[in-house]
């Protein structure tokens, strides 16, 4: 059976112990200004490593726009 | 390099230094027009004043800030364009500005406040030259 979470409203395969930092790596998100929310709760950058996401969580990784 | 040394443990927050400074340079008794400012941080006195580190020298877009022969960092108000970047970038948060004036102002280690301090919590000192160059 495959478990799924939502990242930016798109499905991502979930595994036990998955952290925010893991999602950054899976998605290859390297932008300098990303706001992370899990079930609408803002997660601070220093906690990306220790924040574990659960099956069914709604994760938002909002890239702030830029450009001149 | 001449600078105003401080020993915060001696400060009793009497405000004498602030009064001397603002009276000398702005002819008024106003803490917010004093180059030295006494604050309270976690119920302890904090003496906030320029360390003459000189970070602001490189921030200034018009080279209005220079170090004089004695090592004191000074602002040439004639050249200054009032951009206040030096205020925002001061690592000591000791570069001052007041909305009544166009140019910022700062401690030049004149020592008048030190003379007036009843606790001798502040004093004008001179760094060794080798140190000052860092």
């Amino acid at each position, binding site marked *: 059976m495959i478990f799924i979470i939502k990242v930016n409203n798109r499905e991502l395969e979930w595994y036990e112990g998955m952290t925010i930092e893991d999602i950054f790596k899976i998605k290859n998100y390297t932008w300098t200004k990303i706001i992370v929310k899990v079930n609408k709760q803002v997660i601070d950058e220093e906690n990306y490593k220790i924040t574990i996401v659960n099956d069914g969580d709604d994760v938002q990784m909002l890239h702030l726009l*830029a450009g001149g | 390099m001449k600078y105003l040394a401080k020993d915060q443990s001696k400060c009793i927050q009497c405000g004498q230094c602030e009064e001397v400074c603002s009276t000398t340079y702005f002819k008024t008794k106003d803490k917010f027009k004093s180059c030295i400012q006494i604050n309270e941080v976690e119920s302890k006195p904090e003496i906030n004043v320029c360390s003459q580190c000189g970070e602001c020298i490189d921030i200034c877009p018009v080279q209005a800030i220079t170090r004089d022969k004695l090592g004191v960092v000074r602002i040439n108000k004639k050249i200054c364009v009032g951009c206040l970047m030096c205020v925002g970038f001061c690592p000591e948060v000791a570069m001052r500005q007041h909305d009544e004036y166009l140019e910022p102002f700062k401690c030049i280690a004149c020592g008048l406040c030190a003379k007036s301090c009843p606790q001798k919590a502040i004093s004008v000192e001179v760094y060794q030259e080798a140190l000052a160059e860092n």
Partner: protein
Amino acid sequence: MDINKLKEGRKLLKEFKYDLGSIEKGYTNRTLYVNISENKIESKEVTPLMKEKFIGGKGFGLYTLWHGTTPSTKWNDPENEIVISGGPVCGITQYPGAGKSLVCSISPMTDIPIDSNVGGYFGPYLKFSGWDALEVQGKAENDIVVFIDGDNGVVRIEEAPLEAVDSHVIAEQLTEMYAENEADKRNISVISAGTAAEHSRMGLLNFSFYDVRRKVQRFKQAGRGGIGTVFRDKKIKAIIIKFSNVKGDLNNAVDKAIINKAGLKLHKEMHYLDDKQNRMRQVGTAYSQEIMSAYDLLPVMNFQYGGHEDVKKISPDVFKNNYLTQGMADGCWYGCSMACAKTADGFELLTGPYKGQKVTVDGAEYETLAGCGSNCGIFDPRAILEINFYCDTYGIDTISYGTSMAFVMECYERKIINKEFTGGLELKFGNFEDSIEVLHQMSRGEGFGLILGQGVHRMKKIFAEKCGADPDFLFDIGMEQKGLEYSEYVSKESLAQQGGFGLTNKGPQHDEAWIIFMDMVNNQIPTFEDKAEALYYFPMFRTWFGLYGLCKLPWNDVTPANNKFTSEPAKIPEHVQNYLDVVYGVTGKKLNTTEMVRESERVYNFQRIFNIRLGKGLRANDKIPYRSAGPVTKEEYEARQERFDGQLKEILNYDVEGKTTEEKMAVLRKHRESQYEKLIDAVYKRRGWNSNGVPTIERLKDLGMDLPELIEVVKDMQ
């Protein structure tokens, strides 16, 4: 350089003396009109209507241009104008990014109005010299300079036969000439173009600002749309301004304290957060190069691909560690702590007429790196800096040049054009030596340089006619729209950004909207209505900066620490409030976010109708090349096959098994093109335009823009 000799060549054609006047709440309330055909100079009044509905900057530029030209004015007609205006906030020194000028003219590339925003000291000095705008009209017989002496109230038109044309030379000559001593040099700002601007349509204007540490005039560019070409066509070599004694209160602001407060807050954000965020102070706009590649958004080889492994060779740290000087006050106007104007100092040139000279290169900025670098398959930092330098001094827009060269290189590799046609140059992707020779040809006005200088729009026609190329294929791969080359982002996977480029007024330039992340990555604007709302709000909001003389970068290239807790972090609410505060501080006008957007909308609709007045500005003109929306060629499709196949399956329920790439491409294309049409419908509706892209009279009335001259243009197109 013998300044006296240059002076001897001068001939005074007209001198005009004026009262210095006063600046009240950010306005001088008059504009300077200079006609170089008739050698006529006069002062014009700024009317209450101009201030109320057009604000300043780009608003004043377009308004003035409209009234100075006719529906049949072409870019090289004498009546075409170059209008330069800062705006009411322009010139304050306390808030970062407040020294911008907006330059408007009828463009040689698009034949409609172009607006280009530029830093440097000219805009603020113009206002301090007594003028809200400078309007230049006419065409001189011989090469001239215009000098504005803002200290003494004198304007002169002089013949200047001996001065150089290339910017880095003439700016130095004129600074030497007009400054009394070294300390006086920062009081001089020079506008100039360059030799290649004379022989191409993509000429730009350099606006100088004197760097007191490097002791050199540096430049910011009004790059887009060929205004430098108009400048040289008018036989202007330079416009020089002198103003001494800049102070922090010259705008006579209503409430200086509120400006100081906002400025200090932003200086502190820059101080504490920039190193952790975008590193603008260290590397400038180049910071995003590698990241764009990681997200498949960096144009590579004429926008075929969105990333390349060699991008690491031109990463920001390569420039920082090997070329850029650090720790300098690199703002292009006083008080800009974002300081993104980076330079490579003591850079030795290896080609061209200045070979062997050690020069200061302003850049490379992101657009130049992407356009002249990855998009041309050039991943050599030295090469990019050399192209950057020559584009600047020759007066050439690096975006139009980069995108045009990328197009040429693809055509060369696909054997659409050959070596015979290029005059022996092997214009393959990555060939720096042969491609920079084209740039030198543009300067000399010879060979293939004359063709490339026409830009992609005209090259498509030339290649079809002279080389027998398939015009449809050229339309698909030629990254231009309305005659203007695309700026440097791959929009294939973001429908909203396809509109962000395609539904602009002046042509595909990212300054109206950059919403790729919101759309493609964040998935925040999934429906057509959502995308239309973004393509309403952001172009209006971003237009607003150009009305006031502000730079957009300090709005969103640093963000407050608590921004993530706000309801709409993408808009950066705290910074928007800063702007409302600053506008109040200068002008005394109390705006809210709704009125702010309406101010822009008035000018935005005016510009749209200006386009219509000149025969464009309709739905047909908003069509985009398919390269900006999807894979044109088999190689592009197959390089990202997993993605495209996946979309066909998921979105269209199309069975890709056993299908050829060509079959799949056709299905994908049909889908994407229809999506774009639906997007247009939604955006036009949101903007209050009819299905042909014409602003409705009802909307104009609602905005208070039912001016007779506008109604006259649109009334029969409702």
